[in-house]
Structures are given as C-alpha cells and as structure tokens.
C-alpha cells in the first residue's frame, strides 16, 4: 500500500464545521475513500463534534431570580471581613507600639527571674524553699513583637491588599 497523504486535523475540523466549500468537501470525501488513517481520525473528531453539539442550555432553579433580587442589597460579606481585618490589624499594631515603648523604657530590664517564694503560698506544704525561675523579659517581649509583626503582615495581605487587587482585576476585566 502506498504512503497516504496527511490530512490535517484543522482541515477535518473545518469539514465538520461546514467551513469547506462544496468542491473541497467532494475532494475530501474522495480522499477519505482510500485514506484509512484520515477516515479514522475524522471519526474520532466527529465523536467529539457530535458530543459538543449536544450541549444544551441548563435551567436554574425556579426561585433563582427572586433570590438574586433579594441579594442585591444585602451587605457584602467581604465588607465585614475587611472591617474585622482592619480592627485586628489595628490591634496588632497597637500591641507592637506598646510593647516597643515599654521595652525602650527599660521596664523588663530589671526583672530576671520569678521567685516562687514570693507568691504567698504557705510554706507548711514545702520542706525547702521553692526555686527562682529564670525569666528573660526582654526576650519574651521581643518574641511577642515579632509574632505581632508577622500577624500584621498576614492580616494586611488577606483583608486589605488581596481584596483590593482582586477588585482592581475585576474592574479591569469588565
């Protein structure tokens, strides 16, 4: 059997779409009689074409329009999220500011340990003096500040920057 000429998928799809003129259609039909590979490929593409042609308009539920109209003036949930996020962000910044202020005033420099004997627990329960727990106030406050900075960045991204960029993108796409 001689080598069969290739017929491109584009050409076959144009045939299925009815984009070929009558002469081209007849020529293709003649070619398909002897070109088994093209015939098989046409059938593969025709299966897809027939399936896609069967696409039909789906129907929404009965009270769809009513629900849309009811939602038109409902507050957008993202508004609440943004407000809460901004409050959380303000809280984190306030904590960072206060902690930094107290830290710079040297408030945590003098406290280096917690003496359990000074807690007022009656020593009838203990035979020996309770130990003093080493305590680095500066380190703990620094960790709190760092955690709040991380929290502030996350909140800023999720509730302010991301919604803002999404709105901008939507506006741009409309």
């Amino acid at each position, binding site marked *: 059997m001689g080598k069969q000429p290739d017929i491109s*998928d584009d050409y076959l799809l144009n045939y299925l779409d009815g984009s070929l003129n009558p002469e081209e259609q007849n020529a293709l039909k003649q070619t398909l009689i002897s070109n088994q590979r093209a015939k098989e490929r046409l059938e593969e593409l025709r299966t897809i074409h027939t*399936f*896609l042609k069967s*696409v039909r308009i789906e129907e929404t539920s009965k009270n*769809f329009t009513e629900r849309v*109209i009811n939602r038109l003036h409902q507050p957008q949930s993202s508004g609440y999220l943004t407000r809460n996020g901004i409050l959380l962000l303000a809280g984190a910044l306030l904590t960072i500011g206060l902690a930094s202020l107290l830290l710079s005033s040297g408030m945590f420099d003098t406290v280096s340990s917690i003496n359990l004997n000074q807690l007022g627990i009656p020593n009838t329960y203990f035979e020996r003096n309770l130990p003093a727990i080493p305590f680095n106030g500066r380190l703990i406050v620094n960790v709190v500040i760092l955690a709040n900075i991380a929290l502030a960045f996350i909140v800023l991204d999720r509730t302010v920057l991301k919604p803002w960029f999404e709105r901008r993108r939507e506006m741009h*796409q409309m």
Partner: protein
Amino acid sequence: MTTEQEFAIIDQVLAGHQFAYAELVDQYKNYGFTLALKILNDRAEAEEATQDAFVKAYHHLKDFNRNSKFSTWFYRIVFNTAVSYKRKQKGVLQSIEKTDVRLYAESQSQLEKDDKKKFITAAMAILNEADRLALTLFYLKEHSLEEIAEITGMQPNTVKVRIHRARQRLADELTRLLKKEALTL
C-alpha cells in the same frame, strides 16, 4: 430582547428601579448558569456563582460601557466568578488519571462499556476553563468568535485555533481512554 431594550432596562435600573433588573436576570440566567456549570461541574455551586455574577453585574452596572452586548459583558463576569469558585473548590486539581479510575469503577457496574459520553466528559478535565467555555460558546452558536474572545479573555485571532486545538486534544484523550479501557477488558 434587542440591544435597545436591554439598554432601556439598564437605564431604568441605574435610575433606581431595582426590580427592572429581574428582566435581565430572567433573560440571561439559564445561559449564564450553563456556562458556570461547564466550568464548575456542580449544579449548586454553578447556581451560586451565577447569582454572585448577577449581583456583581448589578453593582458595576454603571461601569458597563455599552460597546458590547450586555450578555457578552455579563458572561465575562460569569466566567471570572466561576473561575474564582473553581480555585476555591476542594480537590480542584483532580487528575485525569483519578477520573479514569472512578469512571472504570462506574463503567463496570452501572454504565454501558461503550458509553463514549462519559469518557468525553472525563476527557474535558484536561482542558482549561477558558478552552472549555470557548467550546461551549462555539457550539451554542449564539456568539461570534470576537464575542467568545471577549468573554474568555482570549486574543480574537486565536479563538478559532484554540477551539480546534481543544477538540484535537479531546479526540486524542478519548482515543487514549478507550484504548486503556480495551486493555482492561
């Protein structure tokens, strides 16, 4: 509904007659829902996304510049909204291989083994949302290639090519799936 009638309704809505919007919703809800369903493959989510799209369109109606049909502008919003929903869907990155396994299980017990429709539905998963939507719009035959480009965000001169390539990929994938099934028989 003619374009002039649509614009008249839009004018009424912008003038504060909110209930006039119901006419636009009634006109485009089924088509919009069909497009969302093609992307999401879930009726409840598609309906939610379509409602969201209508609410967004309402709030941005003053930005509609009337250079295109309302439907083209609205279906673009449906597309963007459905794609956002898709990103939020759990297990969105379900691979075609996983789909095959589920389909084989179904095909063994419930379905006819030569049911190509199921395999094409599975094969559709290899296409991206824009290609899937372009195919749907193309076969519904209500939009020009330029309008399909506007809705899906494609370049107008590449829409036809993308539709051809999408069908080629579907045909290839269907052949692969059928061969795979034949091997399991």
